[in-house]
């Protein structure tokens, strides 16, 4: 059976080499193939490319505000050329600074690391790895992208209005975000932010429901749930988290919209703003924080889990060794998913929360460290006694583990309410979450892009540029965020654009300059990655073998450039789990190979 399969796919390869993209499916117009496509692979690429565009915008914002932080006394005339009044005299104005950080956070958390990450890889990998021709509902899947696109258009447009985009921080706490009198960013920009996020939630729900349905119903013959690659499991839990938590954010935002425009008092009470006494009484500003963080904390795992899944897969493939403790990995993913819903109030230890409630959330928060620790130890054991191939994806996966350890451990500081009293809302928090969910997830994403690029485009990315990309980003990330913890320990609050007016916080000007310089370099290297990505789509070295990494999973049984429908003939049947590497003296055994008579059991 497997030999027949191999012959078949061999033929398909030869076929594909001659006519790229024609696989017996009806001919498609340019529009239906590349724009309003219902092919999960094309939708994945749309998500990825939109995500990359957003990442460049969001990254550029961070460079701009790092300029202000590193050189608060210097003027950059070029900024005035581009941004006019927002950077009067070449200096970033406070309103502009707060708009930049707000947009940086919103864009990277939602548009890049949620849509760009799970949108890309859930779409691309789920059907390919479970053996399905497409998603359960391809049309909804297409809508999911286009809702994301609409959300992007609305968010982009908010950058160009005269009062500026939302600027109350990505967490948009009311009353600041509810009152136009309190901040110019809370005028029209905030309404656009809410509309954009509502569209985004719709996109995320359409996608998430599709991923869940597809994984539960469309698995090929023999693909039991416990034979699924960990990537698919991680994407499954990600989708569950999104489906259960995004509606709560939406409800919170709708109430905020009412408070802003219809005179309700859900979040507003006892307010005298700019000398104006508002009529609202009886609302609770803290209510919004509960609703927000009920999404906000699972969101962290929505960002992190896909990276974890891909890293598990890539580490196993490239150390030529099964992932250690598949069931434990699965169990810890499950535990993280459950606990993700039970820890949100650790963002609110100093809001006046009942101390008893606070102590429960300390317990639940630190509990998450247990499944996280299991995952780390299992990754380490996967590397142990392997035969490791350092392609760029492996390096990024190893980098992910290193960053996840560093950022995870500082989470134990912040999850402990006693320490959080001192560190809450300081630069320590900024350093912590950038390492653990920002940079680490980016590393997972890069690992995924380098690993699956050959499947996406039938070509390789240039690996020398990949190595440079990895090393500069790895060293740069630690240089930027490691010393930042010390600023937090010194009590420097986050979102301070100029610390020169303070006696207590003015001790780190040199450090701020260093961080700014390194972040500009790291940003430049990301642009190099984008260049490598685009260049390689058209000019990269061609893939000539069907399974270039020697991997077991199903996506490598498709033709080099699979068409709509993925497999030319029948969908292959699955006979084993995805991690039979180095078993019985064989380098790897694909999932499609039946269990041999004399095969050892594990």
């Amino acid at each position, binding site marked *: 059976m497997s030999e027949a399969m191999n012959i078949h796919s061999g033929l398909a390869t030869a076929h594909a080499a001659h006519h790229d993209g024609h696989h017996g499916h009806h001919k498609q117009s340019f529009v239906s193939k590349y724009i309003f496509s219902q092919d999960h692979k094309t939708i994945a690429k749309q998500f990825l490319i939109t995500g990359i565009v957003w990442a460049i915008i969001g990254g550029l914002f961070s460079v701009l505000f790092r300029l202000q932080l590193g050189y608060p006394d210097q003027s950059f005339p070029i900024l005035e050329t581009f941004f006019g009044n927002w950077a009067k005299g070449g200096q970033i104005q406070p309103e502009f600074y707060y708009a930049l950080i707000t947009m940086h956070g919103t864009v990277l958390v939602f548009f890049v690391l949620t849509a760009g990450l799970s949108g890309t890889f859930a779409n691309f990998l789920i059907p390919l790895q479970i053996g399905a021709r497409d998603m359960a509902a391809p049309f909804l899947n297409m809508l999911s992208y286009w809702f994301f696109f609409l959300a992007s258009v609305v968010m982009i447009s908010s950058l160009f209005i005269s009062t500026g985009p939302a600027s109350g921080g990505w967490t948009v706490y009311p009353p600041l975000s509810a009152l136009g009198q309190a901040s110019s960013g809370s005028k029209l920009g905030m309404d656009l932010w809410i509309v954009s996020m509502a569209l985004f939630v719709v996109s995320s729900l359409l996608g998430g429901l599709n991923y869940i349905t597809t994984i539960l119903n469309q698995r090929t013959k023999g693909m039991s749930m416990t034979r699924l690659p960990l990537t698919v499991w991680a994407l499954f839990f990600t989708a569950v988290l999104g489906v259960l938590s995004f509606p709560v954010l939406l409800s919170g935002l709708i109430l905020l919209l009412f408070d802003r425009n219809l005179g309700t008092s859900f979040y507003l009470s006892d307010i005298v703003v700019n000398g104006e006494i508002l009529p609202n009484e009886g609302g609770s500003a803290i209510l919004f924080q509960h609703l927000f963080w009920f999404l906000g904390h699972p969101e962290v795992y929505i960002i992190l889990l896909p990276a974890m899944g891909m890293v598990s897969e890539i580490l196993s493939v490239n150390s030529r060794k099964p992932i250690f403790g598949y069931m434990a990995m699965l169990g810890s993913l499950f535990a993280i998913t459950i606990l993700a819903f039970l820890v949100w109030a650790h963002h609110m230890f100093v809001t006046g929360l009942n101390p008893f409630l606070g102590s429960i959330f300390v317990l639940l928060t630190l509990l998450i460290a247990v499944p996280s620790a299991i995952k780390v130890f299992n990754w380490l054991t996967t590397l142990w006694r392997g035969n*490791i191939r350092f392609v760029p994806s492996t390096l990024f996966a190893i980098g992910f583990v290193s960053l996840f350890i560093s950022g995870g451990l500082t989470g134990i500081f912040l999850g402990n309410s006693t320490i959080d009293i001192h560190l809450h809302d300081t630069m320590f928090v900024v350093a912590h979450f950038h390492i653990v969910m920002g940079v680490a997830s980016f590393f997972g994403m890069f690992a995924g892009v380098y690993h699956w690029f050959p499947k996406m485009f039938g070509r390789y990315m240039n690996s020398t540029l990949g190595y440079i990309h990895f*090393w500069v980003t790895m060293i740069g990330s630690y240089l930027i965020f490691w010393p930042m913890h010390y600023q937090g320990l010194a009590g420097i609050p986050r979102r301070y654009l100029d610390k020169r007016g303070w006696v207590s916080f003015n001790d780190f000007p040199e450090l701020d300059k260093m961080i700014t310089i390194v972040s500009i370099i790291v940003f430049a290297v990301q642009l190099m990655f984008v260049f490598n990505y685009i260049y390689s789509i058209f000019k990269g070295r061609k893939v000539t073998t069907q399974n270039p990494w020697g991997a077991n999973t199903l996506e490598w049984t498709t033709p080099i450039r699979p068409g709509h429908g993925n497999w030319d003939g029948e969908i292959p049947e699955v006979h084993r789990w995805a991690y039979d590497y180095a078993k019985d003296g064989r380098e790897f055994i694909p999932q499609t190979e039946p269990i041999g008579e004399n095969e050892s059991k594990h």
Partner: protein
Amino acid sequence: MQTFFIVAILVLGFLITFQIAKASEYVAVLRGEEKARKQTNKVNAFMLLAFLVIGLIGVYYCNERLKGKILGEPASDHGILVDRMLYITIALTGVVFIITQVCLFWFSFKYQESDTRKPYYYPHNNKLEMIWTVIPAITLTILVGFGIFYWYKITGNAPDKSMIVEVTGKQFGWEFRYPGNDKVLGKKYFKNVSPEKNNPAGQLWDDKYNQDDIFVEQEMHLVVNKPVKLVINSKDVIHDVGLAHFRMKMDAVPGTPTTMWFTPRFTTKQMIEKTGKPDFVYEISCDQMCGKGHYSMRGVIVVETQEEFDAWLAGKKPQYLVANPDKDPSVKKDSVISNVSATGAKTQMKMRN
């Protein structure tokens, strides 16, 4: 011009890098891809090990450079607990950090691809997995135990003898109210807030507890070694009373008063000696994003002896008398003028409405 040069250098550097990268790909193809790949594999494995060693040295160096600029002696009794918890956590997580990072990079280096090694088929080991579930669980129980113990001490009820100060945040500054001799803060209502009528806190003048309350802005005075309970409010958006030296922090939420208490251990003068900074003051920083002036929302705390504090407070006039000069025995004579100015303010209010 400078910007232009920087951009030009970046572009040039990038072009060169790209050409090298492309060339190296061709060279690899010419020399045999397998061979070239194995060579870069060795280079990367070595770099990972080097990263570990240099990284750990960097962590040490960073700590040496910066440890003098952080923390310092905690200036409140609660701060001692916070710092102790912090050091316990640093010790435990530090051990885990070093062990796991060393394993990660050492394994990567040691088990780099080699033609002679056969990877070891090792899918699971229940005993091992049990061990590394239980050990983190125990460690975390210790941390949770200490954490909650200290947390309850810090957030528990303030001692009865504490002095009370009301702190109110607004865009972008701080207001304070002392309860006066009766030790009770009078009632207030936000719709009464009126700086024009000398009632910036919105006090209700018919509440007798308000008659001796003292209102000050930007500078709060506290007594050393005397517990203080802060009652925290906000007028407009959410602010946060951040006291880095006392290791204390609490949000100021409009409509929902919050509290925190602590005991200052050192006077401002003592801290000047301890830190060696002649301009040292205790600062209140707003730690919750509150608008364009967030970064400059600064207040000052002066910690002093009871005598100094009493002398300072004695120089302040209760806000009740400032707002109602006709009730003030010391300004009886020019009450007419005050009344006129009060009427003036009223007309202004009407015009605005």
